[in-house]
């Protein structure tokens, strides 16, 4: 049996049904009638079906990778959380209900349930909260969720994960400081936990180091610049204890114990 939900072979189209704003973030909701329901932590390669190109620097050209934010059960809807950081995300953020996406996925290996009845601790930073939302759903909302954001423009992202505790760099909301400080005190209350983290490399590295020091298992959803998303280009590698591995087919979720560092270079952002 496969270690992942496999994708239909070839790109397909999905119609955008809504584009919601949460502060600096956009949530694109689309209907993917032909695709399977994804696992938490899996991702899709997306591009607009029309006018993918002609942006800043005469880009984008290649599709872009996005974690699935939510995939409401029993339907065909997929949700993606998008932060405009360049020509590809800028184009996707222009899409409105009725526009079409060209999509490939679900791709990669997602999160696996906590071992030995450990409690799930979800730790997200910035747009990295995306894969934690669907994981929170699949864990029936039982998990503890800790989220970190830059500022007031980004803090609204917290709306997407009910019951989340928030830290902000500028103190505009929740704890004034880093989300890893929240994680630190959480682990003080008990180490019988399994950590699921996604966010900017420095945050992931802090989570990795912290969990390693306390001997807490952690699954990290990594990012890396990608061209294909299905193992074809060997471009998305990160160094692990067993050499370079492709984030797109051997990840994006990787056991923290397999990494010397989570400070990947050339990441998507």
């Amino acid at each position, binding site marked *: 049996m496969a270690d992942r939900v496999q994708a239909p072979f*070839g790109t397909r189209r999905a119609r955008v049904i809504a584009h919601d704003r949460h502060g600096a973030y956009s949530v694109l909701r689309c209907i993917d009638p032909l695709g399977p329901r994804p696992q938490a932590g899996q991702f899709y390669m997306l591009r607009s*079906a029309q006018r993918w190109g002609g942006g800043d620097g005469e880009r*984008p*050209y*290649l599709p872009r990778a996005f974690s699935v934010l939510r995939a409401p059960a029993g339907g065909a809807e997929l949700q993606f959380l998008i932060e405009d950081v360049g020509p590809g995300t800028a184009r996707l953020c222009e899409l409105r209900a009725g526009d079409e996406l060209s999509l490939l996925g679900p791709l990669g290996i997602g999160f696996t349930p906590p071992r030995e009845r450990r409690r799930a601790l979800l730790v997200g930073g910035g747009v990295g909260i995306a894969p934690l939302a669907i994981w929170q759903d699949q864990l029936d909302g039982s998990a503890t969720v800790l989220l970190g954001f830059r500022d007031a423009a980004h803090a609204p992202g917290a709306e997407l994960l009910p019951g989340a505790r928030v830290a902000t760099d500028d103190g505009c909301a929740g704890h004034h400081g880093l989300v890893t400080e929240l994680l630190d005190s959480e682990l003080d209350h008990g180490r019988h936990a399994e950590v699921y983290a996604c966010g900017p490399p420095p945050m992931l590295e802090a989570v990795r180091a912290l969990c390693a020091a306390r001997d807490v298992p952690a699954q990290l959803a990594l990012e890396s*610049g990608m*061209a294909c998303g299905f193992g*074809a280009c*060997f471009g*998305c590698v990160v160094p692990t204890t067993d050499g370079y591995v492709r984030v797109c087919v051997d990840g994006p979720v990787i056991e923290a114990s397999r990494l010397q560092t989570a400070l990947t270079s050339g990441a998507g952002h």
Partner: protein
Amino acid sequence: MTFCGIELAHPIINASGTFDAIAARRAFGDALLTGFPFAAFVSKTVTLEPREGNPPPRLWEVPAGLMNSIGLPNKGLYGYLAHDLPDLARLPVPLIVNVMGFSRDEVAALVSAFAARDEVAALELNVSCPNVETGMVMGADPAEVAQLLGVVRPLTDKPLIVKLTPNASDVPLVALAAEAAGADAVSLVNTLRGMALDPRTGEPWLGGITGGVSGPAVRAIALAQVHSVCAAIRIPVVAMGGVTCGRDARELMRAGATLVAVGTESFRDPSAGARIAAEVATATGCVSYPV
């Protein structure tokens, strides 16, 4: 149709290093095999020793294209024979193995090893990878290519395809040398040498410092080289470079190519090869964004 005596369902194959059928099988399951997009499968370059490849970042998007410095990661000859070849032999299409050596002896060792394997329909000699110093040398110089073939041609009856580098003053001259020295076919273009700087630091972005440019950005350059090479030699030509649709493929065939390889476009759609083969067969038009 036949190419160097190999029966092929259509003229579209993959460009070496742009499709990993084993990884794709994990991502797409059996659907990959039932709708396999290529008439033959070309493996990523195999070297004698295993290689980790270049440090990341390995990718940079250019206008209408991609620049890569992958650095030929592979399991090495014995790793390939042990782990990859059995799986690749089960693909529904003939297998072409792309090899590269850092010396003639290395290439000879690779060619002899694969000469003995029935699973292998043909060999492609990568003398042109712009990401590895020595890759340049052999492919840019007619004499080097002639000497290389002098050594490896006697080692196998399997078709030998010499993959040319576009980063040369006179590519047809190199093609002529390959033909004269017994090559069964040539393939071109490999990627064009390029560079990008990190927007934040101004330092080279790619771990390999320089990289190879591919995709539509190089299509007109590829067509010119394919055209001049086809005019110079008689052996069949496998053409590639920025092919996104049937029109692009037909233009390369019009310039004289027997087969057309799809590379970067597969990254935008893994089934692009099947679409392009259909568009070639029906001589239908192109739109930039299939599906």
